[in-house]
């Protein structure tokens, strides 16, 4: 019985890891030109990024803004003063980091 459980667990892990390989996280951000920035997220298999955690970090690594991707896989925030990075955090191996200096209109 115990053996079966372990087998099941292994199978589940395999399935999960296969799924993890099959899609990669993607994010793209734009400066809206009105003091806000919008980031869009998604996965290479087309699955939604709704609910994925978002962090905006300052130059010192401190989290300035926290939030989640909305129903449309979008996250809009007020552009911080100075340098910043945006982190799309969908779990280990599934995060994307974009430097604020690369975010243009």
């Amino acid at each position, binding site marked *: 019985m115990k053996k079966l459980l372990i087998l099941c667990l292994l199978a589940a892990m395999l399935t999960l890891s296969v799924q993890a390989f099959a899609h*990669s996280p*993607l994010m*793209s951000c734009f400066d809206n030109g009105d003091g806000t920035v919008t980031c*869009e997220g998604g*996965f290479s*298999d*087309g*699955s*939604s990024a709704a609910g994925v955690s978002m962090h905006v970090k300052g130059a010192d690594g401190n989290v300035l803004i926290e939030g989640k991707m909305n129903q449309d*896989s979008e996250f809009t925030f007020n552009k911080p003063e100075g340098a910043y990075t945006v982190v799309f955090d969908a779990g280990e191996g599934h995060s994307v980091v974009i430097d604020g200096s690369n975010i243009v209109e």
Partner: protein
Amino acid sequence: MKKRFIMLLTVACVLAVVSSAFAHFMVVYTPEIAFEQAEDMDVRILFTHPAEAGHMMDMGGVEEFYAVFQRGDSEPKKIDLKGHLKQIEWTNPGSKAPAFAGVIPRKEVRSMGDYVFVMKPGYYFEKEEDLYMQQITKVIMNVGGVPGNWSEPVGLPCEIVPLIKPYAMWTGNVFKAQVLSEGKPVAGAEVEVEFMSHMPDLKTNSMPEASSVEYPHDAFITQTIFSDDNGYITFGIPKAGWWGFAALGIGPDTEHNGKELSQDAVIWVKAVDMK
């Protein structure tokens, strides 16, 4: 004198026969359709025989030019792009005709996802066959690698719906698609296939005289395939570059201005060499 006249007449007849062997293709051309990040897109729209840089035809203006955008399973969104087009003159070796050019600004296409570009032209009158032609044309573009509606119909009177990502094809892939008229599969549809062997030059708005392909026989210039009972077509892509597929006379409209109308569906796909 008489001899020369007969010779000229013979040449003219042969030319007429040969030229009718070339397939008509509405060309909606932009150099790239797979973007990591969106850029301004330079677009040209012309009506010609692309495998031969053949006769340029007046498409009768543009009725509609838009994109249907979708990222993942979000709601598809229509983006009207007609306002970005202006009329130009396109020159091929031997002929000229009105065509259209435009730059689609990055802000219109900057979101990640699929953009199904749709161009519905006016009507072209083909004197030799005494009929009108209207080729409703699609090109599918992706930004950022998140797929969307590339395999979905966009609700055109007639269209070719791909079953393989049309912006991510390797040379040697098989292009598979379904031919639809009013949303229903068309069995036995005649589909002409041509390779863009004279790459459009966007600076001079022309196609060069030199071809990138040597055609061993006229039959190779326009390849013909038929859809199966469920409207599916398959075609192996032998060479990198742009391939056009035109399903002829499948649209619901069969008459224009009291004359016969051939309402066709066209799609352009691009294959890339594996390196």
